[in-house]
């Protein structure tokens, strides 16, 4: 059973604009699920649908094994969320903002002090939240999401507006919550580098379609599979011909020849053949195919 699952979730803002196309999100219990995609890919729309902020059009959403629509209130009792920009009452203090939620969630009042301390806002006193910096507002929003000790945290770009130190702190906090309290976390971002050190699972979405979903390990395996060698020579087509004769794949890109991954011996052997055939070899390099490249590759194709 998944902690959160969507089946064929499809959403249209208008008849000719499909925002989400059969999204099948599967979030394992206890995992940290990184939901990645460029701006406008459909991440926020998916998360808003999951939380009931948008009216579902097609597909199914189940959380904790129960259909969301018929168990909305019970499910929301166990979810903490932060969607896009901070949602706080500017005329109230940080403590009052949390009190507004505490009244509804009926968690112990002592949680207010604890979460404020957790996000480093316990010193704000009577300062109105409207006077906070964006980073402070974001941290208050995280405190609000954590107030009732949720089982599932849904965070849409929670590090927006935070400085590098703040990003690091949030990352450590989420890791700790996941490890110590087994909280399942869904975190969206448009930057892989930002969350690759945090997540256990990844879903990549672009133009409303799910391009990849699996463990971080599976994505890293994809990285090894897709490594390539670049030959920079004075004759790219002759280089490609020699590579193909060696039963390897070759493509031309920007006057260079891209060869599929091969052992060091094969690379040396092909280099030898190129020289023997009068091709001047300027550079042989391995494509730096890190996760970011795979991510870019996935969304560009």
């Amino acid at each position, binding site marked *: 059973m998944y902690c959160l699952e969507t089946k064929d979730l499809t959403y249209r803002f208008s008849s000719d604009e499909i925002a989400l196309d059969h999204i099948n999100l599967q979030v394992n219990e206890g995992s940290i699920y990184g939901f990645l995609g460029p701006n406008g890919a459909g991440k926020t729309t998916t998360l*808003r649908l999951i*939380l*009931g902020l948008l*009216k579902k059009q097609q597909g199914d959403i189940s959380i904790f094994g129960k259909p969301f629509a018929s168990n909305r209130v019970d499910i929301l009792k166990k979810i903490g969320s932060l969607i896009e*920009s901070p*949602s*706080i009452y500017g*005329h109230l203090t940080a403590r009052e903002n949390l009190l507004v*939620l505490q009244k509804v969630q009926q968690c112990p009042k002592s949680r207010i002090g604890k979460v404020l301390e957790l996000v480093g806002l316990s010193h704000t006193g009577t300062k109105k939240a409207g006077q906070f910096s964006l980073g402070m507002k974001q941290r208050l929003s995280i405190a*609000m999401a954590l107030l009732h000790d949720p089982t599932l945290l849904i965070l849409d770009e929670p590090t927006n507006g935070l400085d590098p130190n703040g990003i690091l702190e949030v990352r450590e906090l989420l890791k700790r919550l996941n490890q110590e309290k087994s909280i399942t976390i869904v975190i969206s971002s448009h930057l892989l580098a930002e969350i690759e050190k945090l997540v256990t699972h990844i879903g990549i979405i672009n133009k409303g379609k799910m391009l990849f979903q699996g463990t971080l390990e599976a994505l890293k395996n994809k990285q090894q599979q897709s490594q390539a060698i670049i030959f920079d020579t004075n004759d790219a087509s002759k280089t490609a011909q020699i590579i193909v004769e060696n039963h390897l794949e070759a493509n031309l890109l920007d006057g260079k020849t891209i060869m599929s991954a091969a052992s060091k011996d094969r690379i040396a052997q092909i280099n030898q053949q190129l020289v023997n055939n009068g091709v001047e070899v300027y550079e042989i390099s391995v494509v730096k195919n890190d996760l970011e490249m795979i991510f870019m590759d996935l969304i560009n194709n």
Partner: protein
Amino acid sequence: MTYSFLHSFQSEWLKRKRSLASWMVVLGSFFTPSIIILARVIYHDKLATLYATPEFWKMLWHSSWESMAIFLLPLGVILATSLITQLEYKNNTWKQLHTLPLAYPTVFFSKLLVIITMMLQFFILFNIGIYLSALIPYLVISGVPYPKNPIPYWDFLKEDALFFIDCLPILALQYLMSLQFKNFLAGVGIGFLLWIGSISALSWKYGYVVPYSYTMYFYLQGNSQAKIGHTTANIHLWALGYFVVFIIVGYLLYLNKKEKG
């Protein structure tokens, strides 16, 4: 459900703290009494006679309600109702509110109850203000006697209740609009137009069908010089009817909103 409604109401009540709407309730309720006090202090030479009049309390009540029934109460309800829902738009908090474990009816009706309670608060403060507008000139100006006749509490309370009912359609329609329009000016603008339309329609024999007109009708009904259309219709029942209809329509529209934050 009952408990969650109570908790939701407490949460909503906390949100109005220090808000413009809550300040409006306090300032609006003491505005007319303050003007009356000021006028009486300036024209203090006529006060001794005035305070000795047997009809003192009724005259004070009538003059206090004059600007209130025609202008301040309808406009105040238009603004305060819109400002309460605007708190959610301005702070981008509808999404936060709709991801709390609250059923939609709880969200809708607890917010509505906060607005109604604020209106009740306004009526209480306004009544206190009216009493103070009688008491303060008596205390500060020498030679002014305390009114002989007792305050006709029951008459005033009954009128309070009827004025309260009469502004419920304004409250309900403004609430409906403020939940539909993100732009504060849209709901307030339409509200102002309806209020102006109500004033214009007062002399028309069917003017009572305009839902923003009932506080004016109620105030002017007893005034033989007022140019209002004569009607045998029970305007208070009309007001209650509109209130119920607007609330039902408002709730259905809210429930079926495609985007809830």
